[in-house]
């Protein structure tokens, strides 16, 4: 590489080379926590102003904050932690980003190269530990590799199916002089994901779609990862075809919830109409979704009569769980645009009469109003968690600021997915694949850092929020006005629900005794604490929370025994859904086979 040779400049230290590479990659913010092995990087950070550092209070939170930053901006989130415990603490966040395909570059310190393998202080085999928790990882052992590896890490993190990439940096590499090289101008020698779909497959897919009598579009987080153009193409295709559209948990916002063709989320806690339409369809267009077990339910009974088209940028997502008839490898946006073009150009006409009949059937399912709940309104009534979320949504509608919602994991997450509609992509941030309790607060930190003027709400449960509650200190330090909306039922609600439905009501260890007073907790972290104990207090608390320009914890005491419905019990099929007490008719039996599933 003679061109690169000429541009090589020797810098005083590897840490400076690292920061230069980060600047070149457009990095504005790093979420991190210092320690011995990364002191040279922190020293270099101290001596510059281009890159801002946000000091978190736990390394796991650094990764979630970077995920929040990445998912709300479409850019790569950057993490910086020290060796040993710094790196091992980050593992949960990395695994989370891997499962949900979030582009993150995690820089970890490492003991000096000559000490690697000697059980040195704060040494861990970071690349070994994180290999299955990252898309790719690197250990930089030579100064001349440093800049190249950092540039490559960003390329790998954001290309193809995005994901977390870790770069392990021994301390001597950071201290000693190192050459800088700019990002390569040639393509990566081996990692070149296919972006453009095969036109023959697109034609095949459109022919199948035009023959459909009971079609459905099933869209996932891949549409959001592809960018806003992909959502626009999805909307255009769904409108042009008059097909019904459902999205996964990760796909919420990829298709506007207010569109009449939106059936809501599908899957374990999806809507009646979405799941029955998936079960009864004859042609399925899956795009940027991966047939997760929370979506398919019992595989053998999953959408048994349909021919399936699957668009995915990751060839290993295709035919993994469900065998499909038309596989299309490529970027979701490009594939949807190609599909739309072919839909308009090709001669066949869709069967509008059959599709009108299909809509009549879907409207009957919709009439069940599966998300209905009953909220008694007389003063003193206990607050239903669904009602709290609906009111939160309604009271935020008039606000002329950008709105982002993060969640923790559990019942509150599913209720938020069901009752808080999203019109645009990148506004909804939740831990879907890994299901990481403690995700929401640090993710909200990342979102608020990226969007200082936006309204950022973490819809939380009282159990999940305690998993990363230390981030209240980060919130205080940077005066981030995040709103933490706790649906407090004093239980690990989803665990309690499963114990009620599957384990004979034996509530083993799911009641949280000795909860903190969240109002006082907020105050001790320099935030505002509010509480609503019964229905007449709810709206006032939400209004006050929204009107406060500081961080708020709103502790909403909700019905302790409320369950999240509809629910497809594990091991059951889409048409074996349990509906809520409001419209209960079937209590589908949970088989022993289902019991072993999670």
């Amino acid at each position, binding site marked *: 590489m003679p061109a690169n040779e000429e541009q090589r400049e020797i810098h005083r230290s590897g840490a400076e080379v690292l920061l230069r590479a980060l600047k070149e990659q457009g990095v504005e913010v790093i979420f991190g926590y210092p320690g011995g092995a990364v002191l040279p990087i922190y020293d270099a950070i101290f001596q510059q102003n281009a890159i801002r550092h946000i000091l978190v209070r736990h390394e796991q939170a650094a990764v979630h904050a970077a995920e929040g930053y990445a998912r709300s901006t479409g850019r790569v989130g950057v993490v910086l932690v020290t060796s040993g415990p710094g790196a091992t603490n980050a593992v949960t966040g990395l695994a989370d980003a891997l499962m949900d395909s979030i582009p993150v570059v995690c820089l970890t310190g490492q003991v000096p190269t000559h000490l690697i393998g000697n059980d040195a202080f704060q040494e861990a085999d970071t*690349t*070994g530990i994180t*290999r*299955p928790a990252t*898309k*790719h990882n690197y*250990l930089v*052992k030579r100064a001349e590799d440093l800049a190249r590896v950092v540039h490559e890490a960003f390329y*790998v993190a954001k290309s*193809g*199916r995005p994901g977390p990439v870790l770069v392990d940096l021994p301390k001597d590499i950071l201290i000693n002089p190192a050459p800088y090289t700019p990002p390569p101008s040639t393509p990566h*020698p*081996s*990692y070149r*994901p296919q972006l453009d779909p095969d036109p023959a497959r697109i034609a095949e897919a459109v022919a199948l779609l035009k023959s459909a009598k009971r079609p459905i579009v099933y869209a996932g987080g891949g549409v959001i990862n592809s960018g806003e153009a992909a959502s626009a193409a999805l909307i255009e295709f769904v409108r042009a075809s008059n097909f019904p559209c459902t999205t996964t948990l990760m796909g919420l916002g990829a298709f506007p919830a207010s569109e009449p063709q939106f059936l809501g989320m599908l899957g374990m806690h999806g809507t009646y109409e979405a799941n029955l339409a998936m079960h009864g369809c004859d042609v399925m267009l899956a795009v940027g979704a991966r047939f997760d077990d929370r979506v398919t339910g019992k*595989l*053998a009974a*999953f959408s*048994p*009569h*349909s021919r*399936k088209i699957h668009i995915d940028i*990751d*060839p*290993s997502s*295709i*035919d*993994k769980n*469900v*065998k*499909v*008839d038309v596989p299309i490898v490529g970027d979701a946006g490009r594939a949807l645009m190609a599909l739309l073009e072919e839909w308009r150009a090709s001669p066949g006409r869709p069967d509008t009469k059959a599709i009108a009949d299909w809509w009549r059937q879907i409207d009957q399912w919709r009439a069940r109003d599966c998300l209905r709940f009953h909220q008694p309104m007389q003063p003193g009534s206990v607050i239903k968690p669904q009602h709290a979320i609906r009111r939160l949504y309604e009271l935020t509608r008039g606000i002329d600021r950008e709105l982002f919602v993060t969640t923790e994991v559990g019942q509150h997450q599913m209720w938020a997915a069901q009752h808080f509609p999203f019109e645009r992509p990148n506004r909804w941030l939740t831990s879907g694949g890994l299901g990481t309790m403690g995700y929401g607060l640090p993710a909200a930190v990342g979102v608020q850092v990226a969007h200082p003027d936006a309204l950022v709400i973490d819809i939380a449960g009282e159990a999940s929020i305690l998993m990363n509650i230390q981030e209240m200190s980060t919130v205080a330090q940077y005066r981030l006005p995040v709103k933490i909306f706790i649906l407090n039922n004093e239980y690990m609600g989803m665990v309690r629900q499963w114990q009620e439905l599957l384990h004979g009501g034996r509530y083993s260890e799911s009641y949280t005794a000795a909860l903190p007073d969240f109002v006082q907790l907020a105050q001790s972290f320099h935030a505002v604490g509010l509480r609503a104990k019964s229905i007449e207090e709810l709206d006032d608390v939400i209004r006050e929370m929204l009107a406060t320009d500081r961080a708020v914890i709103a502790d909403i005491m909700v019905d302790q025994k409320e369950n999240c419905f509809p629910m497809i019990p594990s091991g059951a099929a889409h048409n074996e859904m349990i509906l809520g007490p409001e419209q209960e008719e079937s209590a589908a039996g949970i088989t022993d086979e289902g019991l072993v599933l999670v």
Partner: protein
Amino acid sequence: MANSSDNSYRSATISVLVDNEAGVLARVIGLFSGRGYNIDSLTVAPVDPERKQSRINIVTSGTEMVIGQIKAQLSRLVPVHRVADLGLEGPHVAREMALIKVICSGEKRTEALRLADAFRARVVDATTGSFVFEMTGTPDKLDAFLELMQPLGLAEVSRTGIAAIARGLKTI
């Protein structure tokens, strides 16, 4: 419908061209153990010093869907350049080498030598009480020879696992 199309197992010989860098074998093996795929045989060695590439040959088994997954999962590893399913992409040659120690005396010694000759195994070490045979062939041929050596005093075996390559003009 399509979900249960083909549940029969098949064996697959997969060759993978990878960058010869630290951790690349761990990535491949970790993928197999992490996702519960079988490894029946695995060999790895550098094959292109100029490009710094190594070739990994893996014999695995699974349903058509699982083998498809294995190939897709291997292909998306960053240091992987090419994944070839040799059985599927045309005729190929697969060979394995074994070093086989037989401890025996008297008539059994002559019999062992006679069989070794028939199987074109070479004697690479001999003492008055033992032989070490070197033998190359398909895994089946090696199995057959080892079975014959069993009653004659088979004491120890070291096998390489298979190296495989496509027949004809085709290259990886």
